[in-house]
């Protein structure tokens, strides 16, 4: 099936099997491997991307369902050499270690701030419940998201 979408601002059009998941479309077809796969039960959130500005676990969506959509992956978040405020906050507060959950976690956090521009710690923790991390104990991730919320444009994509 022909599937066309804007990925990180660029129009991408490919013929894919109807059963292709969005995450496989992004990784294997478009070649953007920043988005990771950490499970097979839609539990871990490593594959979270933005679809139309809203976070989606890209393993829960078929590529055909994203036809015509605007997709943002971790590769498309920075503005050229200028990191997005959420990326900056993760670096500043050591919100990553092995880096595997990071792309999904950052995308989920950006979307969280769209919904809750000034979240409480509890709201951040609940908002990120669907994104698992084994390295950080979430401590610095939560800290980074709370700090990012205080920066202008942290929810902008």
């Amino acid at each position, binding site marked *: 099936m022909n599937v066309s979408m804007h990925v990180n601002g660029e129009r991408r059009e490919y013929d894919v099997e109807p059963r292709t998941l969005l995450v496989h479309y992004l990784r294997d077809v478009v070649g953007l491997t920043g988005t*990771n796969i950490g499970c097979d039960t839609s539990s871990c959130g490593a594959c979270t991307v933005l679809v139309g500005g809203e976070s989606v676990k890209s393993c829960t969506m078929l590529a055909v369902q994203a036809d015509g959509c605007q997709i943002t992956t971790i590769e498309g978040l920075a503005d050229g050499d200028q990191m997005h405020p959420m990326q900056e906050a993760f670096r500043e507060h050591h919100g990553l270690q092995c880096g595997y959950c990071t792309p999904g976690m950052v995308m989920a956090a950006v979307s969280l701030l769209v919904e809750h521009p000034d979240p409480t710690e509890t709201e951040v923790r609940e908002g990120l419940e669907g994104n698992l991390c084994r390295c950080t104990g979430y*401590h*610095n991730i939560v800290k980074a998201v709370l700090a990012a919320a205080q920066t202008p444009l942290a929810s902008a994509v």
Partner: protein
Amino acid sequence: MSILGNRVLRREDPKFLTTGGVYGDDLPGVGALWATFVRSTMAHARIVALDAGGALDRPGVVAVYTAADLDLPPVPAGMPGIPESMFRPVLAQDVVRFVGEPVAVVLTEERYQGEDAAEAVFVDYEPLPTVVDPETALAGGTLLFPDHGTNVATDFREPLDEHFFDDCEVVVRQRVINQRVAPCPLEVRSGMASWGADGRLTQWLSTQAPHSAKDALAGLFALAADQVRVIAPDVGGGFGAKIGPYPEDLVVAWSARAQGRPVRWTETRSESMLGLVHGRGQIQDIAIGGNRDGQVLAYRIDVLQDAGAYPAVGAYLPMLTKLMAPGTYAIPKVSASACAVVTNTTSIGAYRGAGRPEATAAIERAMDLFAAEIGADPAQVRRQNLVSKDFFPYTTATGFTYDIGDYMGALDLALEASDYAGLRAEQARRRAEGGPCQMGIGVSTYVEITNGLPDAGEFAVVEVLPTGTARVYTGSSPHGQGHVTAWSMLASEQLGIPMEDIEVVANDTDLVASGGGTMGSRSLQAGGLAVHEASMTLVDEARQLAAELLEANPDDVVLDKIEGRFHVAGTPAVARSWAEVASAAEERGGLRVEHKSSPSGPTFPFGAHVAVVEVDTETGQARLRRLVAVDDAGTILNPLLAEGQRHGGLAQGVAQALLEEVRYDADGNPVTSNLADYAMISATELPSFELVSMATPTPVNALGAKGIGESGTIGSTPAVQSAVVDAVAHLGVRHIDMPASPQRVWQVLQDSASHKGSE
């Protein structure tokens, strides 16, 4: 001013944050076949028939291999003393011994074709009696390896003197379960193998230890060491479970040779939950005795370790548990006994702490039980029995010599930071009010061993190039810890070359001559030490050369670390830069120092944790409200990295105490084999942690550094478990096994109430 000890941001991060890392599954792998494993669906069965015919006709299938095709010997256990009859076949041979054991491999052009084709491999299993429970395994009614004659893989049992507790006024006994848990690095296992026309193997592996993987592969294929190259790309966490290599990796390498094409593999999470080693898995019978005034006189622990189907590292964990049995306490008599048995389950391996959390959990439970029995405050009983800081180095009753410690200091800091007295007052008030939600306070003290492997050293090379930039090669194996940042800090400190001009090279056996890898909290004290020492030697050598260039006495030449230039002391105007010195060194083979560190022994980090939980006595739900942690890892190189290690460790400790458990049904079917069923801890189940700094430098190495990777896990697990028990102690509860899930806590409360009712 020294850079050491500063909160330097990670140099690693920009890549991970903007493009993502390049993990095994991200490798281009042009022309590679995909390997998909057919895995046993039974816990214990004889393979009566295995027919790959149906799969070979499927689209894209290139080959299907079984044990009969492989000319590979079983994998040595990698640990001394494990009988050869228990070695693991690379693919199951005749008998399968756990659900998930690889039986065959399917090679396909595309990845999805493998998943379809694997279903078409027909395996006829004749069920055998299954052993899941370690005690049943110990009884030996059903043997996993009949040739061995017993299910006991390693035996460190010691009889208990019947008069052991004779001088004690009080003796408390308890069976404690240290449950099996899953390491769950967020990246599963992944890799690729490619053989060159010259017969040389290159293998990419998601591993913590590339060099030992290289040795294993060379041994298996009877290759010279220089005929194997192992590369660890970015690795998405390991926690002990990726020390490897795994049988699947060996099959991938063998298949690539057989096909004359690269072969790659990435498991699914569901495969990983069965194939990656599990951790813990001990049944502990503990007994503690002492006087009513709080003095502990004798402690005994009997460990029955579940080693899983094929014993390896897991069979040796109880050895560490035994040696660390007395923890932080000066107990006159300690007796420890252990053995490991095989069961029809996934093998047990190293997992964050590996043998030490089990020891700490047991002794801390024992201290609480003892305190409860004599009606004393658990913090007070601990104070009374801690090894005094005046006695270091301290040799324990089990034969370890702790380098340095101030356990009382750590406990005091934790009690003060948590406002222990205030917490007890709040608890008393709420108990008096009698509401359904009760609070519990748990206290733990711990000491653990880091860098405890027989070879305590690590390899490093430091070189300065004619460009004036430096390169550090390390045998440590970064996979999230921040080695690039830490090692460039250490080199920069000595060389006076800015961190950003120092490249750190690791995880490639062609580029780094040898290495021990990253495990057992050894990196800084072994690998960092090597970088530190090599950098100092390099400065000395450069100084000699600079002296020649300056026509001065080497003793008079100094390195200006701010400018990165050598000059005669007192005359900075005439100087030679690193670039000039390195250029001059070109004709003599360059400015390069190879070095292996040799720390004089392991180190023993210690600390104290206080946990506060809320337990809903109507539902059994326990929630962690606070976790205060004092973790003393000696001199801290970079507080940012050290705190990150503590945070991650704490979360994994809490996870074991409250949530996580790998479970099997009676037939050996796993019931927690994906992340929907396994309760991997999330952000909602944790509070922000309250870290308290304490740094007692070790005399064991020049950096004063001890390990920090596993401390958080070791201290937090018993603190949180104790807090849950403490929350319901006034209802007659003395012990709750981990994980303190709502169901378990609720059940204990029901049992306690009905027990009281029948009195």
